[in-house]
Every structure is written in C-alpha cells, then in structure tokens.
C-alpha cells in the first residue's frame, strides 16, 4: 500500500516538473519551432530544390547526388534535428541553472530522487527532439523539387530508433550541461557537435562509405551514425543501410554509456 502511494507521489512529482517545463516551452513556442525547423528547411531548400532546378551544369554536386539526394537527406536531417535539439534543450537550461542564479536549487527542492530529476530533463528534451524530427518529414515532402516520400513500414523500429536516439541526445546534453560552463557551451557546439554531424552519415549513407574503408570504420565510434542509419532503415529503407540489430545494439550501448556519464556529471554538480 505504501509502495503504491510512493509511486503515485513519484509520478505526480515527475509530472509537476514536466508541466513546469511545458509551461516555459509554450511561452517560447515560436523560437522553439524556428530553432528546430530552420536548418532542415534551408538544407532541403538549397540541396533538393534550388540545385536541381538550377541544373546539373551549374553545380556538379547535384548531378552526382541525383534526385535521390533528398531521400538520403531526410533521415540524416531527422538525426541532426534530434541531436541538436536534444542536446541544446538539456545543456543550455542546465548550464544556466548551475550558473549564478543557482536555480538548480529550485528544481532539486522537488521530492524526487536526483536521478529522476535528471531523467525528467532528458525525457522532456526527448519529446522536443521527436517533434523536431517529425517536422522534417512533411518538409521533405513539400520542399524538394522531387518530393521525398517517407516509406515507413516498420513503425515499431521507427519508434524505437526515435526514442533511443532522443534519449541518447538528451544524455549527451546532460553531460555537457553539467560539465561545461555557460561561456564555453558555444565552443562545444563548434568543436564537437559540428564535426560529429559532418562525420555522422547525415549527408551520405554509411554503405556509401565503402569506397573510403578507413573512414567507414572510424565513424563507427560516432553515435549519430546509428541515429542516421536507424532512421534510414525505418523511414527510407530503399537506401542501403546497416542491419537493424546492429543499429539497436549500438544505440542502446551509447545511450547507456552517455546516460551514465551524464548522470554522474549531474550528481557531482548538484551534491557537494
């Protein structure tokens, strides 16, 4: 009986934190949508609308990429949306909360175990990441010169990949937000996140890297590769992709590892 009461209380407290984050997000909804939508929108616009329209002679890249570039881009852009939104929506507020206002004191007054407070932050960011990723799908249909149709047969796989990817990104955000001071967060984005994205099979598929074997092996250490490939497997399966079991194992592994790292960093900052 006490245990049941305890878990009800736990859920209410968790929901309370979630509601607070929701209220703040609603207040800043426009900026959120702009932040999440701008990059994929522009990318699709330039690479799948402008360049094909201009014609192959003007830009060799489109000739090489072909009309199916949009198909390759779609899951990649979804992965980028998850990565950036996921990390930013945890790291930026967290860095502020640990900053001069010590607002973390306010959150930690909540009668939840500290790991649950961290989990709430990661979960809320996961929700935002998923929204960001889903927004890319209609964009990929309407923006390109040749519409990209999402070919989703395996809904469970898609759901699993999206959830795992967004938890992974959220955990990275937790680690970054706890360990990096606000002033240096911009630096982290330029030095770590941008390279990860460019070397994350976002703009090209992993199987395509057959021609550069050393790179194909090297990028296996990059978690975003599994996010892109996982989304490729579930959204645009026509493009060759990594086997689904490998993707899931890697996603689970990276989520667990980054989750542990993030939680450790968070606890270290919260508890003296």
């Amino acid at each position, binding site marked *: 009986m006490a245990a049941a009461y305890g878990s009800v209380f736990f859920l209410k*407290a968790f929901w309370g934190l979630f509601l607070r984050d929701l209220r703040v997000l609603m207040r800043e909804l426009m900026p959120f949508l702009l932040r999440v939508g701008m990059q994929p929108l522009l990318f699709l616009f330039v690479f799948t609308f402008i360049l094909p329209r201009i014609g192959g002679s003007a830009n060799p890249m489109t000739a090489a990429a072909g009309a199916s570039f949009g198909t390759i881009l779609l899951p990649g852009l979804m992965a980028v949306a998850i990565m950036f939104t996921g990390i930013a929506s945890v790291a930026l507020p967290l860095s502020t909360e640990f900053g001069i206002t010590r607002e973390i*004191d306010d959150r930690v007054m*909540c*009668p*939840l175990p500290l790991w649950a407070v961290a989990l709430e932050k990661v979960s809320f960011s996961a929700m935002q990441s998923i929204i960001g990723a889903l927004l890319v799908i209609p964009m990929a249909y309407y923006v390109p010169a040749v519409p990209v149709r999402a070919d989703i047969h395996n809904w469970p796989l898609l759901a699993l990949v999206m959830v795992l990817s967004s938890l992974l990104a959220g955990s990275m955000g937790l680690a970054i937000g706890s360990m990096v001071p606000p002033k240096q967060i911009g630096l982290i984005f330029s030095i770590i996140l941008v390279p990860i994205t460019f070397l994350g099979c976002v703009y090209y598929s992993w199987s395509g890297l057959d021609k550069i074997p050393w790179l194909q092996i090297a990028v296996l250490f990059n978690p975003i590769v599994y996010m892109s490939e996982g989304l490729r497997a579930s959204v645009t399966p026509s493009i060759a992709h990594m086997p689904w079991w490998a993707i899931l194992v890697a996603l689970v592994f990276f989520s667990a590892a980054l989750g542990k790292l993030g939680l450790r960093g968070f606890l270290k900052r919260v508890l003296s």
Partner: protein
Amino acid sequence: MTLLIVEIEALTKIYESKLRVVALDGIDLELHQGEIFGLLGPNGAGKTTTISIATTRALPTSGAVRIDGIDVVRQPAQARRLIGVVPQFNTLDRSLTVYENVYFHCRYFGFSHAQAKARSLELLEQFMLSERKATYPTQLSGGLAQRVQIARAIAHRPKVLFLDEPSAGLDPQSRMAMWTAVEGLRKEGITVLLTTHYMEEADTLSDRVAVIDYGRVLALGSPEKLKQTFGAETIFDLKLKSLDALEPVIATLQALAGVTSAEATAEGLRVIASTSDGLLPTLVQATASHGLRDLAITEPSLETVFIRLTGRDLRE
C-alpha cells in the same frame, strides 16, 4: 511520536581537495517541534554546510541528520517532503512568474491543479504579494524576492523550515517584516532552523541558540541562559592615542573589583567587566595619561557571549 523533529548527530564534513578543509567537526543538535532555533556564528563557521547537509544538498563525511526520524542521506526524496528551504540567494525560477513559482512548487509536491491554485493564491495573499503575482523574479527587490522564497518554501506545509542567512542583503524594514513572518510560522506549527551572523536576529527571534565556530558547537541554550552563563559582562573598547607602556594601566584595571580581564588591543585596550557601576569614570581617569580618544561600551548580548567563547568578534 517524536518530539525531536530534527536530530543532528556527530555531523562531520571534510572537503578533500588541494587543501583539506574541515567544515564541520562533529555537530550535535536536537530541535524540538515548534521551536525557532538559531545557529549563530561568523562567516565560515559551518552554518551553511550544516543546512546543506540537512536539506539534502550535500553529503556528510560522517554522522547523520534525521528529520522526523527520516535519515536525509538514506531517504533524501522522503526527507524533502518534510522540509522547506529558504536559501541564502535568490534561487527563484527566473522563467516563471511569482504566482507560477509557488504554483509549480505545489505541483512538485503532488497537489492537484485546483489545490495548487488555491494554495498559491492563499500564500500570495498571506505574504502581501497578490499584486505582484504576474511579475518575474528579476523584477523583484531583495525583500520581495525573499517573501516569495518563504512562500515557496512553506507551500507544501513542511514540518521544518530552514532559513539560511535570511537577513543577508535586506534593508532594516524588510528584515523586520521577515522576522514577523517567521514568528507567524510558529502558529502554523512549523519548526524553524535559521542561520545567522547577526546577533540581534539570534537574540530576538530564537527560542534557543547554538553558537558555532570552526565547525563546532561552542554553546547551546536559550539566549538568556547563554548570556547568564557566558556573557553577563560588559565590554569596554578604548581607543588610545598613545599605546606605549600600557602594562601599569592594565595591571591597575585588572586589580579593580568587577573587572574580569583587561588586555591591549591594536587600537588601545579592551576591558571586560561583570559590572559597569562606577567603572566608567575609573577607566577615563586611568587612561588619561594615554589620551583617550574613543570609548565603546557593549552591553551583555550574544555578541559578548561569542567574544567570550571564541576570543574574537562575530563580524571579523
């Protein structure tokens, strides 16, 4: 039923970094239900560390803190339901209005929307913040922010309220208002533990006081009892023009009836006496040859208790 609402047992906190800092060196305290307890000591004494551990923000090196029987280290989430904290700094949620700060705090503690709304409006009324309910924390003065923090802290009706240096940064009017508010909490049955380095705050507000320095409790009791035991003495601080050859003067003064001690200080003399009767003219006469420039008299107070116990001023 435990009447001891807070039990602090052999609490130790040692920070091991480049320097080994002993913040707390074995603190033992017990708070009775409904009392206002003051932890008095200078900066660095260990007051904030004690509160941090009691409010689950820091882990002790050894020892225990129990709130209504619940160990704060073993069951921190449970303990947090029973305590309210008003931290030293303004930690209000900057992204929420005054009303929302209190409202969401209620939601964290399992209140339904209706309950949270009712409680928040009630508290804003109680602390005269109703007009400011749509204001953001960055627009509030120190005194107002403090009131919101108190409202937030008691929203979920905790058994114990911890106030860390509540007067810090407040103007005298806000301070008085805060004291009135804290006194009012007594009626609601809330036990209060406050830390301070202001003697008057400990004296006026607290039922009992613990004097703390260098991580240890030096004395414990009601302000009256402490003054009787340790500080029933008046302190005379004399500023002298000439500091040479003070020994004969010191010897003369020490020989006087009622004088406990006389010692040289950087600016002149400090005489501690159990009575001030007739002492003043004697002091002036005795130091005439040395050019008495200023004389300060400190009546028996917790300040003198502190000086007696530690040999230094509260505000050093």
